[in-house]
């Protein structure tokens, strides 16, 4: 009774609390987003009057080698930021939680967890500076290690050679991302009921079976969260590319967000930049929607 009354009584009162947020979001997100879509249909240098060109920019995108390169590169970045960290993270989390945590001590497990998570807290610019130095062709740490152990012939211009640049960026991104799934999956594993394991033990299940049949199954929510959030941050990657390679050499490490930035602030082609970022936004929204649908469908099946 009291509940229904309080629910009906004065919803408008709650609406008032939404006011500052709505005003802020309208000014910072809604209006600029709509403007950006508008700009994408115009030719505009940022000054003067924008000139309506309709879908011209989008047509041009379809034939632009840089645009396709940026999306091809993003697929590689997704491997480095999503696929590898998730698989490796699952394995590490299982070893740390099930083995180290239970047989050696939870303290030891959390020390390893913290160590693996540390690269996550660095500002992207700092990550870029550190790895830019390590991978530098002449003064870099990598090449000088190779030299000192007699493998100098393996030295490469890691970031300056189109053959290696994308792989080097991928390597850095694995380093950055690994800790996140480890932390997430370890916390998920805490929810696994030990009785399930004991029952499986009685049935004679090995560690691998328990891991794949019970653990992975039960931490599905965490796996979804990691997959969604890392895929989106892979699509949005900018800072590391800006500091490490600036999309080069050529377009070998070009990504959509850097490509858009270039058009906005280097080539003064706001319309084209807006078209690129609008496409990127659409892709992210569609992908998120698909992910959420798969997740809810899966939850319903599980329930």
């Amino acid at each position: 009774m009291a509940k229904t009354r309080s629910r009906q009584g004065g919803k408008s009162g709650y609406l008032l609390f939404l006011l500052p947020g709505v005003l802020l979001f309208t000014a910072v997100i809604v209006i600029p987003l709509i403007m950006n879509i508008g700009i994408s249909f115009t030719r505009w240098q940022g000054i003067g009057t924008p000139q309506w060109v309709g879908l011209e920019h989008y047509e041009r995108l379809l034939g632009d080698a840089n645009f396709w390169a940026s999306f091809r590169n993003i697929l590689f970045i997704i491997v480095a930021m999503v696929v590898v960290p998730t698989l490796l993270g699952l394995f590490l989390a299982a070893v740390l939680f099930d083995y180290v945590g239970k047989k050696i001590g939870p303290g030891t497990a959390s020390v390893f967890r913290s160590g693996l998570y540390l690269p996550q807290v660095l500002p992207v610019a700092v990550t870029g500076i550190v790895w830019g130095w390590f991978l530098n062709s002449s003064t870099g740490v990598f090449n000088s290690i190779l030299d000192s152990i007699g493998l100098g012939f393996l030295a490469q211009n890691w970031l300056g050679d189109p053959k290696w640049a994308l792989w080097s960026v991928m390597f850095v991104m694995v380093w950055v991302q690994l800790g996140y799934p480890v932390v997430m999956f370890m916390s998920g594993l805490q929810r696994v009921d030990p009785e399930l394991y004991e029952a499986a033990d009685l049935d004679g299940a090995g560690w691998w079976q328990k891991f794949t049949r019970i653990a992975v199954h039960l931490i599905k929510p965490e796996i979804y969260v990691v997959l969604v959030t890392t895929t989106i941050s892979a699509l949005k990657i900018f800072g590391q590319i800006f500091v490490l390679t600036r999309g080069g050499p050529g377009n070998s490490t070009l990504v959509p967000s850097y490509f858009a930035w270039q058009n906005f602030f280097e080539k003064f082609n706001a319309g084209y930049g807006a078209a690129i970022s609008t496409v990127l936004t659409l892709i992210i929204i569609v992908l998120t929607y698909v992910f959420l649908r798969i997740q809810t469908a899966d939850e319903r099946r599980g329930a």
Partner: protein
Amino acid sequence: MSTQTVKKAKQGGLATKTLVLAGLTVFTGLVLAPFLVVLINAFKSSEDYSQGGPLALPSTLYFQGMIDFWNRVEFGEKLWNSFVIAASVAVLAVIISVLNAYAIGIGRLRGRTAFLMFFLLANLLPQEALVYPLYYLSKQFDLYNTRLMVIIILTAIQAAFGTYLLSSVFRDFPPSLLEAAALDGAGKLRTLIRVVVPTSWPTLSVLFTFFFIWTWNEFFLPLIFLIDNDLQTVPLALAVLQGQREVDITTTAASALLGIVPAVLFFLIFQRTLTRGVMSGAVK
């Protein structure tokens, strides 16, 4: 089972234990090695570096590189800029998130799912899709090249995430507490300040920590909106310095160390909050 087999099994267990620990230590060591390399090179002189290479320990502790770097970029000023921006954004974004989530999660407004989807999307948007209009508008309103502009934009973006997360936390807010407050004659604002905020303080502190660190690490928006040297943040100052050609390796190492130290300090201070936050953000 004979005692001997038990003994053997235990020994086998010990061997596996050592093996697993050694493997993990080597792997984690490799992940952390860059931090160590930065540390030892930040205290070398250029001559020392060219003689011993990047992996040797410094022959003497050389502080001049770091001091020169500090003065060159006026690092103290950059720290202050970063702190002002990160702290303002964290406070404002928590306040906006609480207000939004109070209306959506506890007020259960009609259309709350649509609201939530909107806030989720606002957080997912690539900043590139907003930045040019914001850049243009900031010039129209004389806010370009000010810390205030960066604070306003980042508050909105962080609050979008905060609203999304907090709304689901508030949905499960114990109704008995709200009813008790209502019986005491507390209005909505009083209930929020006296009951809801104190009860959810742990979650709010997690949000604050996240917002602070994310804002501190932010690169894209300061790159575009903070042009003047004396407004720049730590990450931006480091990246700009790096773009200048004549920077030598030991300066790079010194600058990297000064960029790493605050981040690692936050990490150590907030470690518990952070892991708790990663977890609570995960499954809701």
